């Protein structure tokens, strides 16, 4: 039993890191632009399908296909920002409605072109690594490592660079940031590009692990939202930890309770934590 639990703690952490990358996009977008972008899951889906198209149809090696796939998702994010989101800043409800509308648009487009029948990529890195009695697929470990590196680099980038400080300044007081020379329009565009690109990267990594279908983004954006709230909206490392904790709760909960309800276990713990820490585990209490 110990080995089973240990194995699922590790597996849950890996699966949870996928929630974390979406949570990071959510927390960045909301923290800096004030938009709750429920459509981030769709940018993840775009990244996943783009990876499939580039690797399976275009013949690109998987590691090469990941970068343009994330860029395609970011480009879609850029267009959505220019066409819709820039008109919804400062209006939470309108932003929410636009993002929900985009879910339908993107899902329908993919449904039309690819159909809803799941598709699967070739195995990028088959096989598993044994750590004692615990066995973990190599590809999952690689995905976990990539996500952790990306989140840490994002944290460092925001904490140590002028752009990062400008972002925090804008999030705290947009008017003051503008007066201090921050080019707010460019900043917001950069945040949208980066968060949708991150979601696209998440999708590209997802494609190497699971079969793809148009509705995949819906599940992950909800998990990402849970992870972001659990970690504390606005906390970059909190989004990673939120995702990991959520993944571990789901995995370990499913050992002792029916797997058919695994989605509920994370939600129950989330509600319980929010009762005591309304701003999340790593959120600012002030």
């Amino acid at each position, binding site marked *: 039993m110990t080995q089973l639990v240990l194995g699922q703690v590790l597996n849950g952490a890996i699966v949870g890191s996928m929630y974390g990358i979406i949570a990071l996009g959510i927390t960045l977008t909301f923290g800096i632009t004030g938009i709750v972008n429920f459509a981030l899951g769709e940018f993840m889906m775009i990244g996943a399908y783009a990876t499939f198209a580039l690797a399976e149809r275009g013949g690109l090696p998987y590691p090469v296909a990941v970068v343009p796939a994330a860029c395609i998702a970011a480009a879609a994010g850029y267009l959505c920002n220019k066409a819709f989101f820039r008109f919804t800043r400062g209006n939470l409800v309108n932003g929410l409605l636009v993002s929900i509308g985009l879910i339908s648009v993107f899902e329908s487009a993919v449904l039309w072109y690819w159909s809803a029948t799941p598709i699967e990529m070739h195995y990028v890195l088959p096989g598993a690594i044994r750590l004692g009695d615990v066995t973990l*697929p190599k590809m999952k470990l690689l995905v976990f490592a990539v996500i952790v590196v990306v989140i840490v680099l994002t944290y460092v980038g925001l904490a140590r660079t002028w752009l990062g400080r400008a972002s925090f300044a804008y999030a705290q007081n947009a008017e003051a940031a503008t007066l201090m020379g921050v080019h707010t329009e460019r900043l917001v565009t950069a945040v949208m590009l980066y968060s949708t690109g991150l979601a696209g990267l998440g999708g590209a990594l997802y494609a190497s692990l699971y079969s793809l279908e148009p509705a995949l983004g819906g599940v992950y954006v909800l998990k990402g939202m849970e992870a972001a709230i659990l970690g504390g909206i606005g906390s970059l490392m909190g989004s990673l930890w939120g995702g990991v904790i959520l993944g571990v709760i789901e995995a370990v909960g499913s050992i002792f309770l029916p*797997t058919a309800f*695994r989605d509920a276990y994370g939600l129950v713990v989330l509600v319980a934590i929010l009762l005591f820490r309304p701003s999340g585990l790593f959120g600012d209490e002030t």
Partner: protein
Amino acid sequence: MKRMPTLLGILAAIIVLAAAPAFAQDVVKIGQIEAQTGPNAIYGWMSSQGTALAVDEINKAGGFKVGGKTYKLQLVALDTRGEPKEASVQLKRLVEVDGAKYIFGPFLSNVFLAVRPYAGEFNGKILMWGGATRIHDYVGTPGHDFLMRTWNWDAGPNGFGELMVDQLVKQGVKKIALLYQNDQGGKVMEDIYIAMFKKKGIEARLDYFEPGTKDFSTVLAKIAAWKPDYLFPGYADSYIYDIVRQATETGQLKKFFLVRGSLGPGLKNKDALDEYMVYVPKYFEEAEKKDPKVQKFIKAYKDFYKRDFPYDQAPLCSSSCYDHVYMLVEAMKKAGTVDDPAAVKKALMGMTYEGMWTLRFDERGEEIFNFDVVRLKKGGALEVTHINPK
């Protein structure tokens, strides 16, 4: 003279309108409600492909004669995407707007349960041919004369599932783990197989997963800790691909037993598994080499759709598909009518159709046909057993 074009136009319109009912009478409409796309589309997609092909062949051959009149077929195939609500609206359209008396499908139990009450209102006026497992509970019962099931039943002396479980018993299998999706299809399989395994002395455990699940690591680890001889995963390829991959990648579970789904997930993971035993209505790769009817079908498919033949999906054409269109036409000829589904059903019940499969119906209206059981071994070696139910 200036009025001449107008008069000619009116005349042409009158001719077209007068002729329209005559044309309409010469067409027999077949409606189809199947999931052509979606996670559970494995069944409906191939059915819709085969039906369209047969309709095209029959029409190109000049149609068929009933009572001295030549008829052509018109197929109205709608994609339910596996959504019961969507299917209900589509069936209403097929029956009330298109006037289709012959309905092919559904293959999914959740869809069937949703459309059954509405279809029942047209008892005796329509004929519904579906492969859904839940149809077994209703076919041949009062108020369900409209229903025929186009799939072998799992249990009983002719049951393909029972025969496969008997093979497990012969191997000395003691424990089997069932991993089903938490939906109507999963529940119906629980009803059939838990009792069957118990009767045969095989210990079974059942785990459900939420539809939409992609990561099965936890439940597979739980199952592996129980040390079953075989894993019996769900009924839809969309999940079976992920399950077989994740189970074999970690080496936790290497033997699979399936009564639904295709050979595809096994073939994709053939080097990592020990055995993949699956019910396949026909193993086309082998049948193509021996059976001219299968060769003709494969060639016609490639010519019609201008793409490769889907060997892994093609076995699903055993239900509400290619052969059934021809069988329906033969039944109409035998009954001497295209407008009376009750008479056509009576003709169907008394006939055996020799197509790619040998098709006939039992006294309840449930189909019995020959099928194959394929055992895929590590590395890709195959062993095919042909079964001809009595």
